[in-house]
């Protein structure tokens, strides 16, 4: 891909070609524009943030900082797998399922909002080199990367223990406070005069869950069925006979259809 065929803009996004290293024969194109959303987050102020898509898997925060550093001072670089707010960061850490090793999205937060304007005017002729040679900041990929990932799996047991202990102390404290708080609020009517009933109240309630509701419904249904008499009146027994024949007919008809299908699939050729 020669540089001059690269358009500078696609669908409102600026285009910047990047390459992994000097030796790479081909690279990718990053697309970016001003970050604009209805509900902005504190970490990504809309006026001085760039929204970058198609960030290759091996590209890290440092690369992006270098790439956009030319437009002004960068305050922070946020890499995400998906656009928008990162949800369930805690869950993701404990039960990782999200894919984070593919192409990513980046938010570049500049120190100054003029940098965004400058970035939007920038034209790139030559592909930007993500991992320049001889530089200590070269990106590690492939076998070496996996080796270091393997190493990172192991943590000193003492530190691990400390982390767990610290959390639990904090957690117990929080729980205790909540409990105390609940005790204080127990039986106290709110502004509208309503008293919240909890499990710990003097008159405890059953926790509301779907399973319990279903069980209750099934119980009632069973009760109702038990009361009903079967084949008591003549019309009932006649009805049930009629139903039986209808059922047989239906089955027969279904079977016939299945056979037709099987025949169509040449299922009856024994050898």
């Amino acid at each position, binding site marked *: *891909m020669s540089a001059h065929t690269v358009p500078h803009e*696609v669908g409102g*996004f600026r285009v910047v070609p990047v390459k*992994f*290293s000097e030796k790479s*024969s*081909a690279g*990718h*194109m990053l*697309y970016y524009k001003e970050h604009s959303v209805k509900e902005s987050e504190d970490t990504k102020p809309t006026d001085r943030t760039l929204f970058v*898509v*198609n960030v*290759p*898997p*091996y590209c890290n925060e440092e690369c992006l900082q270098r790439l956009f550093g030319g437009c002004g001072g960068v305050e922070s670089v946020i890499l995400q797998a998906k656009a928008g707010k990162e949800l369930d960061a*805690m869950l993701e850490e*404990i*039960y990782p399922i999200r*894919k984070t*090793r*593919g*192409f990513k999205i980046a938010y570049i937060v500049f120190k100054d909002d003029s940098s965004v304007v400058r970035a939007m005017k920038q034209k790139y002729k030559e592909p930007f080199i993500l991992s320049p040679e001889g530089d200590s900041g070269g990106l590690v*990929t*492939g*076998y*070496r990367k*996996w*080796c270091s990932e*393997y*190493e990172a*799996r*192991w*943590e*000193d*047991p*003492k530190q*691990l223990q400390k982390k*767990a*202990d610290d*959390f*639990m102390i904090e*957690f117990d404290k929080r729980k205790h406070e909540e409990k105390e708080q609940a005790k204080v609020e127990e039986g106290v009517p709110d502004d509208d005069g309503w008293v919240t009933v909890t499990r710990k109240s003097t008159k405890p309630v059953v926790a*509301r*869950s*779907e399973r319990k*509701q279903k069980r209750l419904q099934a119980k009632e249904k069973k009760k109702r069925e038990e009361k009903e008499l079967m084949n008591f009146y003549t019309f009932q027994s006649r009805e049930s006979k009629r139903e039986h024949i*209808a059922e*047989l*007919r*239906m*089955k*027969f008809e279904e*079977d016939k*259809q299945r056979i037709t299908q099987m025949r169509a*699939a*040449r299922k*009856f*050729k*024994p*050898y």
Partner: protein
Amino acid sequence: MDDEVGEGVEESSVANFGKRPPGIKNRLPSKKQKLNKAELYKPPTMTELASLKETEMLYNSSLFKLQMDELRMEVELKEKKKKGLLPILQSLEEILRKLPPMTIPDASELEGSLPKNVCLPMRWKKTQLKGEIKLRKPLEVKIIGSYLLGTCLNDPLTIDMAVQIPTECFQPKDYLNFRYHHKRALYCMYLVKHLKKKKDLVKSVSYGSLQGDHMTPVILLKLVGKNATVRLIPCLPETGFKEARFAPSKNNIRQQWYNQNSEEETFPPTPHYNFSILRDMSLERHLHHLYNASYDFPAFKDAVLLLKVWLHQRELDQICGGCNGFLISMVVAHLLDNGQVNKVMSGQQVVKNVLHFIVTTDWASKGVTMCKSSNSQTLPGLEEFHQHFPVVFVDPSGYLNLCADMTGTTYEHLKHEAKLGLDFLDDKRIDGFHCLFMTPVLFTRKFDHLFTITKLKQLRPSVKKFDLETQLMDRGGNYPRVVLPRVEEILRQALGDRIKLLASGLFHSAEWPVNSPSPKIEEQGPLTFGLLLNGGLASSVLDKGPAANTTEAKAFSEFWGKKSELRRFQDGSICEAVVWPGTSVAEKRLVCSHIVRHILHLHAGIKPESIAYTGGQLDPILQQPLLHPSSPGGDEEPAPRTGEEELLQISVAYTKLSRHLRELKDLPLMISSVQGTSPAIRHTEVYPPCAGWPSDRLRTAGPSVPVKIPSNDKQCPTWIPALRVVCHLESSGKWPDDLEAIHHIKTAFHLKMADMLHKQCKLVTVATASHILAIVDGFVFQVSVAHRREIVLLKEVITKEGLSMLRDNERSKVLERETGHLPHLTSLLHGVHQHHGAFGPTVRLAKRWVASHLLADHMTSECIELLVAYLFLHPEPFTSPVSPQTGILHFLNLLCQHDWESTPLFINFNNDLTASDYDEIRQQFTNNRSHLPVMFLATPTDRQTSLWTQDKPTPMVIKDYIFQRLIELARESFTVLQQQLSGPISAEVDFKQIFRPPLDPYDVVIHLRAKLLPRRHQAVDADPTTESLLTLKPTLDAKHLPVVDFDPVQCYLVELREAFEDLALFFHDTYGGDIITVVWKRPAFKPQPFKPLQAQARIPSTSSSKVPLVIPNIEGIIQDFQTMGRGLVTSIEVRTENWNI
């Protein structure tokens, strides 16, 4: 069976994958036409009511009846075809009736008087024929047999025509000394001479034999323009000779003449000789008998057709002395005479009664006779028949044994199949129809072990050894058939309890051209034996005989020859015993082959090397070069092991670990259950790890973490998998209701347990937040604590109303699968392995096959295990395989034959599902078909979700793509393997063929550096000698945890899949594959409008359109393959040039 299986498919035809194979299309149920209400509830007519009631009572479902009708329509001869054949058959008859006479001037000088290009269909050294022989036009030409009865199969269509040789051709006493047979052969030659010229009617003329009997040749005519064969059977009129002459104990061959010596004449009985003449005299009478039976009996035709299909699928009609359509028709006629069947019965009932009759009677000891004549003085008694024939079923005349050629073994085989057939019909959960009639039960698929005696000639000397000279005369020199019963007897005695069934098959020699001499005796079809092994006993290495110095002991040692030796047993007794080689499990499985080779060599003089034994041909696939020999110091080459010993060691280590865990002192909560989840623990790991590992010079992670770290990029550490174990703790109210807190408590448990295991049990352990790694007996285990409440908390969703609901999500599913379903499945599958020793090896072969075709990442391991479990729990119409080789054959067949689109596969563990459960699941399945996975597996604990096939195999972008490929590969591998197993087994046959993947469908091939492949020694064609790594000595007393679960290729694949998931599919052989192959997802390559969130790896298209379009950046992606796999990738081969598809 599908058409495609029959074709010789080349490996290369896999190339067109992506296309649907014919027949899979249009299988989706057409829109249901429901009966409307008025029709459904209209008053029933009497006939309708009766038929509905009948189907309900007689058949399990109306489906069965309908299926049978369909099958009958498929196999029976169509009226239309019959009409087309009529004029041809008439003109053929006409020709035969007007044959010009022919005279052979002197029988003693035949050579000169034979026509050119027509040979005699029989070989004889000497004959009593002398002087002039007149050959005249036939007395009578009649169509007989199934064609006339309407019970003949459409394909292959054979029409029997009896040609009666006129009496002028005979002289009195021609029944003696093969004179009749020789004249019959001359008559065949006479018929052929004239028919050969009729090119307008007859496409080709050849000779064949009547049920493989070389004494009674027949003529086979292929008709012009019709797919039909006319079989001309020269025969005698009913009154040709006196029947009483051919009673089984009468002699009709003079020994003096036969042996050309002047010994005293002894007149030994010649039952088979008599039978061959008597059969020629009875053709017409039998036809009449059957015709009377079938008259006004519509089910006769149905039943015989079905039974013929049943026999054909079992190859019972194709072996000499088997059970052909004629015999089974006679059985039906007999049952009708007997009143066990009546004329108002339905076809299915008749079939069932016939099967029942075969099962409950014993023709080998209490023969059956159809003869009703009370004239017991002249008729031979049943005892007389039993003296001369192993199986007795006498025809209505009272002289002819219809089972004269049947051996005891074949009869047992027939009975065995009938027994199975009855069971299938009775079990409502099995598709009895499919089992009985639609599945071929060939020798190669039915039996665990097969062996073929390749050089029949070496059976000749054993005739003398067994003292069967007179029988040889009786059979006209056909020594294989004379010796066969004795060989069977010896085999049965030698194998004893080891086998459930012995079957033998001397397949009919096919037809031969009229201008070549008839095949020699030794050129008969291969003599094949099938063994159905008895799971537990077959692999015992010891045959214990009687106590020493008794008469029985003498007989025993005589029977076993030098192999028998005196041994002292643990209980102090000294007995004769035979010990067979069996140091490894795989070798033990082949004990029967040693027995067969030894005993046949000893008693029948058959050279061991001429027995082609099929049993352990696929074992090399499971062997991996030993990392270290288990017997140190021994110079002896250790027997090749198939990993089964390692799996046992793992079981022992696992038990030890769980005992340690349970016995931990001072743990805040007791451990309530320890459950393994790794395949190795349920004996289904393809290549289980060996105890210990080679020493290396890798550095460790740190002083407090005794873990080795891979760092040297010259060579990757050996592959050592961690075996997973899940622990549940006793329930306690103290667990918090918070996921993060639970996580930290679990971490604390892991740390504590690791510490205790190290201190109390002296194990090397390392704890991480999510698990403990522990070394037990040289195996690495990964233990993690699970808490059931976690799953609930993950699932819990609270609605606005404050109602708590449980909804599955990705995280909860993963956790539930790992800690709930998988341990349960492991125990179930482990149970299957305990019952069926071949289960583990079969799964391992199956997994190896899937991986070889680079599909292992696209199918869960559990899915393969369940499929194999199905083969063992529901083997119908076979029996549970005892040899892994048969197992893998069934596995491949299951993949390509099962109708995945419209039927769920039931794996009924412990028979927990009832017939009504089956119906319910089926119903649900049909209703929700479009939302369910391509392969739907139902088990008692997983009825509606098919847990193990939910995500795979089903790629999202191209639906069914991988699945279709799997099916196609299975179909081809099945064809190849079946051919290899049924053909002559020799060293040249390459059984690894089906384990080599065809590479032509792939767009890109990424080649990997061998040194960085930790499992390279597991590759199908790995060369053990060049591996320097394998020569290293193991270190069992490790102080450090080795590098576990580290496979760079897997790391690479994860990254590739995450980055290019929507553009390409990646394939790799998990077990040492040195390539990764890539297929572009075609739909993703169409230029698409630019969307910022879907712009991954895409570049603006050069095409000029108003909306900016983007296409995948192929060059960039290929470069990424290189960049992301730095160190591992050696080269990238781009195979398709055209990107824009």
